[in-house]
């Protein structure tokens, strides 16, 4: 089964609103990464947060990590229609760079 699980499965918001997606995982991790995917294309790397970090920012993105709860959240502020995509969390938990993905959150930002 997948290591990570995203919540919600689907999210629909208006442009300008904030979008929050959550990810839970099961085992200890080295790091957790968030990716965006548009319409079945390749994955775009958004941000990596290491197990000893609690929060990271990149532009309009804010990621938090709570290793005690084995959970992470991705916040997109001031969303735009171009943010419409599937968002995946992926955990790096093995000795190699083996990412385990959840099933993703489908975000729709309405103009």
């Amino acid at each position, binding site marked *: 089964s*997948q290591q*990570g699980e995203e919540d919600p499965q689907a999210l629909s918001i208006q442009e300008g609103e904030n979008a929050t997606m959550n990810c839970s995982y099961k085992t200890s991790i*080295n*790091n957790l*990464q968030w*990716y965006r995917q548009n319409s*079945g*294309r*390749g*994955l*775009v*790397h958004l941000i*990596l947060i*290491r197990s000893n970090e609690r929060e990271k920012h990149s532009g309009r993105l804010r990621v938090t990590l709570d290793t005690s709860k084995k959970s992470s959240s991705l916040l997109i502020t001031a969303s735009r229609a171009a943010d419409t995509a599937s968002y*995946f969390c*992926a955990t*790096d938990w*093995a*000795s*190699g*760079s*083996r*990412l*385990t*993905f*959840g*099933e*993703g959150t489908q975000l729709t930002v309405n103009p």
Partner: protein
Amino acid sequence: DAGVTQSPTHLIKTRGQQVTLRCSPISGHKSVSWYQQVLGQGPQFIFQYYEKEERGRGNFPDRFSARQFPNYSSELNVNALLLGDSALYLCASSWLRVGNEQYFGPGTRLTVT
């Protein structure tokens, strides 16, 4: 700088055939990983190669094999194709073997009929 490139973009094969997918990593990246993404699901790890050696293998049958060349490019081979092998095959490259960002290519869409 060019990102990860994959070829071909799309491929249609019939059951029982064999297929080879190709990946060129970002310049300077020594690790290449392969993932399979079935429609509606997240990607699943197939292989990791680092410095031309297999460093990890996911839960896929022996019909799946891969290799990495001296220039760090990689090929994924799938033999005796099944309908269930229809998926988007993604290649990712990274600088190190462990613990860093992976950068994905656009993928190869394989359809098995």
